[in-house]
């Protein structure tokens, strides 16, 4: 149909968006991340002492799924991820709405809420381990002042996982709030004005304007904190080491314990299991969130 085109003159003009812009990042990423990850796929099929690796097929995976607490660990992992990301969404959104409104002392509130993001996880873990001590901890001592006998936050097997999750939210909600603030200020004021003319109440404003229009921010917060929750390790390790017993074990801490015990192949197999778990949960989730995003 366009037979009269002039292919002979087709010197490729340099693109405004050249592919080599990918190159530096791609090199660093492939060499230091992708290559070891691919190597680990092989090691997950071996009995590996670090000194030599013996190929044993899928035995590691079989063993990993025989781990008495793996199932609980899987459940814990999902619970932890759901709680932390859920709370970060809800609390982050609330705080962001509050901080974008005409509230007094906004600067103070913003700083204070964001500040825990800055402190190292290990430091936060150590601090809260002290604060949550069942008898000497400040939290329970304060509760005692008003006549409440505080629970064993980190030593009660029913509570430990939730306590760590709460600390995780405490530390991470500042970031979620900032993402939401960015999302909220990007919503054109017209929508609120239109809603006001339509007679919407503040609550209706929130549910019919703010909530749907901040969906991109929600998608970001959920994706990041959900993945973070599934992978979480340092905070659990700093606070409970998966205990008491196995009560707050997650897949990541089970993996780490295998690793510590010198079961490198087994632990690498656990890595692969964790990766699959994350992929199974996160890929559909992001697809869902992104599909919704497409409407806007």
């Amino acid at each position, binding site marked *: 149909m366009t037979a009269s085109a002039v292919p002979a003159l087709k010197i490729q003009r*340099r*693109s405004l*968006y*050249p*592919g080599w*812009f990918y190159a*530096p*990042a791609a090199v*660093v*990423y492939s060499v*230091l*991340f992708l290559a*070891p*990850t691919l*190597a*680990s796929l092989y*090691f997950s099929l071996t009995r590996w002492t*670090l000194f030599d690796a013996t190929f044993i097929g899928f035995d590691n995976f079989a063993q990993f799924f025989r781990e008495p607490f793996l199932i609980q660990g899987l459940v814990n992992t999902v619970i932890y991820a759901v709680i932390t990301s859920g709370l970060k969404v809800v609390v982050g959104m609330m705080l962001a709405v*509050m901080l974008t409104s005409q*509230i*007094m*002392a906004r*600067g*103070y*509130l*913003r*700083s*204070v*809420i*964001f*500040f825990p993001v*800055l402190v*190292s996880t*290990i*430091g936060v873990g*150590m*601090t809260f381990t*002290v604060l949550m001590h069942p008898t*000497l901890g*400040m939290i329970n*001592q*304060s509760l005692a002042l008003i006549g409440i006998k505080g629970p064993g936050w980190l030593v009660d097997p029913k509570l430990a996982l939730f306590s760590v999750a709460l600390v995780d939210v*405490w530390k991470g909600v500042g*970031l979620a709030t*900032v993402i939401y603030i*960015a999302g909220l*200020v*990007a919503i054109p004021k017209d929508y609120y004005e239109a809603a006001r003319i339509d007679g919407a109440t503040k609550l209706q404003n929130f549910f019919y304007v703010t909530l749907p229009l901040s969906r991109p921010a929600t998608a970001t917060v959920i*994706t*990041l904190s959900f993945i973070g929750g599934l*992978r979480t*390790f*340092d905070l659990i390790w700093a606070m409970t080491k998966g205990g008491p017993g196995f009560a707050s074990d997650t897949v990541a801490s089970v*993996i780490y314990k295998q690793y510590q015990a010198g079961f*490198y192949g087994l632990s690498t197999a656990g*890595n692969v299991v964790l*990766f699959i778990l*994350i*992929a199974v949960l996160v*890929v559909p989730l992001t697809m869902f969130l992104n599909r919704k995003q497409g409407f806007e």
Partner: protein
Amino acid sequence: MRSRASLFGGIAAIAATFVVFVIPFLFIILMAFKDKQQSALRDFSWPNGFHLFENLYEVIKTRNWMMITAFINSSLITVVSVTLLIVLAAMVGFVLARRKTKWNGLIEFLILAGLMIPPAVVPTIWLLQGLKLFGTLHGMILIQVAYNLPFSIILYRAFIATIPRELDEAAVIDGARPLDVFFRIILPLLWPVTVTNIVVQSVGIFNDFTNPLYYLPGNQNATVQLTLYNFQSQFSTAYNLLFTNILLITIPPLIVFMFFNRQIVAGMTAGAVKG
């Protein structure tokens, strides 16, 4: 009416955030002022006397002034890797957002994979050794860049999509080459996200504990989080020193925050770029 409601709301918010967010920090600070005996009580009380400076001295001089080395190392790692991250991630984000090719799907998959896959430690160490980077700051920096790239790229890509493509074109008409467009037009416009990136990544890298633990062995390579860890058992009976240590290593992120605080907010509020 309205202002009174918001006044009460404001006071309630200030009180609540004070209890939830400020008191734990006050606790850390108070502990750092106490002596060993008083800190062992682990309560929220006024220090008996001023022991901050002796605690600081004690923490800093421990193990042959390791804290000084650690601060230098951590700062170097943080500054260099964040700089590299910003440039590399923005370059990827720029092309990724602007140029639609069949590779985009693969690249996005790799980015998501990078967010999801837990790194494989020992194979990485072998590789670093092959490259003669094991136990060096260079190696550590590259590791941090590799591990944190996906997050930065995602931040940038989303923001670049809001920058009108006509700006690139105007620059091209003005005679800009791709590098000019990127460094003179796009990168400056990304400043709000760059601030976010600087804050989030520098704090993350400065506070990283696991990766230096594995990839950066040796005293001369100590980083600040490792000092906390090294001293934890040594200080396990001296809470004053433990919390002094926590306080000390929280200062650099705090400075980053104070430096960029206004810009985080301003950058965030700027929202989409106006032309």
